[in-house]
């Protein structure tokens, strides 16, 4: 499995993993849901690689399975069994084909430049704020994508959780990458913005940090599923 949520140290590398499995005749399936590199895992010996069609690729909601003909066939044939419940329709298949075709001609350099401009804008908006450190960090699984890591210290008058909660509760709601928020940091990811939205994020950050600290500024994360259990109310 390749993901920002896996343990990032002390693990076998993929080539080592593949070599060990293949020595015992066991096929290797790589979950590369959010990886940009379509060739690396097959080249490193994986028998099957699975990608999301609806992440970086920008296709409709889907999964893409690639690999040896025999194993992919066996995967496809599951549509006669348990795969039936997970089937996709014509619209999704055609959408994935088009997204894969478009990937070949995508202006990756232009997209990165736009993303870098957003990162610089946000870094400038946060520069000189007491208790806030912002630095541009690479993607942890080596995708060609940088993010802005924002460390929130008590001197700012906020916790990371407090600041992100205010961002998400505002208008428009701004949802950050907050999976490590209890460690006092979050990220701003520039890869899903419509034109102009980077400015909105910068403006909101400035407004919130300029204003007096609201009651929930120092809030700490509370894990609760109470809201879920009331769904759909």
């Amino acid at each position: 499995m390749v993901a920002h949520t896996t343990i990032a140290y002390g693990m076998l590398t993929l080539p080592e993993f593949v070599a060990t499995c293949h020595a015992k005749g066991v096929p290797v399936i790589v979950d590369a849901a959010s990886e940009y590199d379509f060739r690396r895992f097959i080249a490193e010996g994986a028998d099957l690689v699975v990608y999301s069609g609806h992440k970086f690729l920008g296709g409709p909601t889907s999964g893409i399975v690639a690999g040896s003909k025999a194993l992919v066939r066996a995967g496809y044939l599951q549509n006669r069994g348990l795969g039936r419940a997970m089937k996709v329709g014509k619209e999704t298949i055609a959408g994935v084909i088009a997204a894969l075709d478009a990937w070949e001609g995508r202006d990756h350099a232009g997209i990165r430049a736009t993303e870098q401009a957003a990162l610089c804008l946000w870094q400038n908006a946060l520069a000189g704020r007491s208790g806030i450190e912002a630095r541009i960090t690479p993607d942890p699984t080596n995708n060609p994508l940088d993010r802005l890591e924002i460390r929130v210290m008590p001197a700012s008058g906020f916790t990371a959780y407090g600041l992100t909660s205010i961002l998400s509760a505002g208008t428009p709601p701004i949802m950050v990458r907050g999976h490590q928020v209890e460690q006092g940091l979050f990220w701003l990811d520039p890869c899903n913005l419509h034109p102009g939205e980077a400015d909105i994020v910068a403006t909101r950050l400035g407004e919130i940090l300029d204003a007096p600290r609201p009651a929930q500024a120092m809030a700490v994360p509370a894990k609760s599923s109470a809201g879920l259990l009331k769904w759909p109310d």
Partner: protein
Amino acid sequence: MTNDIRQDLGLRQVINVSGTMTALGASIVVPPAIDAVSRSLSQFFDMGALHKQASAVIADQTGAEAGFVTASCAAGITLAVAGAMTGSDLLAIERLPDTGALKNEVVILSGHMIGFGAPVEQMIALSGAKIVPVGQATASSAYQLAGSINENTAAAVFVISHHVVDYAQIPLKTFIAVCHEKGVPVIVDAASEYDLTSVLALGADIVIWSGHKFLGGPTSGIVSGSKDMVRATYLQNRGIGRGMKVGKESIVGVMAALTAWKTRDHAGIRARERAALDVWTDALAGRPGVTATIVPDPTNNPLDRMKVQIDPQAAHISAWDLAIRLAAGDRPVIVRDHEVEHGHFFLDPCNLHPGEEFTVAERLTEELDKAALANDVIETPLEEIWLAREASILKWPD
């Protein structure tokens, strides 16, 4: 047809007189759903909030308390059964298909254990539940249902489909009464049923439809029912339902299709379908060995089809050879042939684009004319066709 993506992809332009079949791309999606899908794709949503909106639309259209959209009707069955076992126990949801100490038996009539492209009982078993067949394929009785329910019974599944054994089965009303008497919730698979309210009104706890059949939505399954049971079904998205999730595009598409269903011109559609049936009646009239009759839908949907009965000796061709020839070539006409060994197939008029009914008539005429001129009766042994089809499955993707 211009701008036909099938041409771009090098695929044949299939004419569907088979029905709203998954294997053919289900249905013609209605314009409001196409519009909603396309407007959603470049936007971000609070998906939890979107699911709540969908719940309200489904509730409004079905009379249920709540609703949920998933990948397919099959997924709806799996997740509704899962929800009946776990309720809102989030840890139990993550542990499926290990059912641990949960009630895990699901009763289903033997005559309902059908294949719809996959086995319906496998959709139940996917949740971790254990199947308890009731009665025999050819008959089921209330005492067999009552006697199959015990303290471990989590749910009962009832299937409405043209595939089920259509005689000597417990009627739905009795099925619900027996299950409810024993405190067992009833989940109804109504994949291809037009009526969005009557099964719930009969007392079913959960009813599931395909979003992409008669409704003309994107590929999806629609779950409706009591709030507690629909919630338990929805929460499976945190577990086994994740592999069956739908995206924003499918949810907004289903909402639009449900809303459009309210104002659909049903009488106009039936009139167009009738006109197609009349074209085919005329085309087949007086042909030796061909008997064309208009028959109602077997599960009482407001839809007639043409049953084409073929006498091979008089027509010079068997029903299945005719079906195969119609499906060949660059204007493939796919007929409804699930009973073809009885010497008949059906023509379903509900998925035609304007003018396609004439192409169907032309192709029928062409193939029947050719057969009439043949020296011998064209009658390939059916078992050879079936074995060849089985063999070809394993050659994919070649």
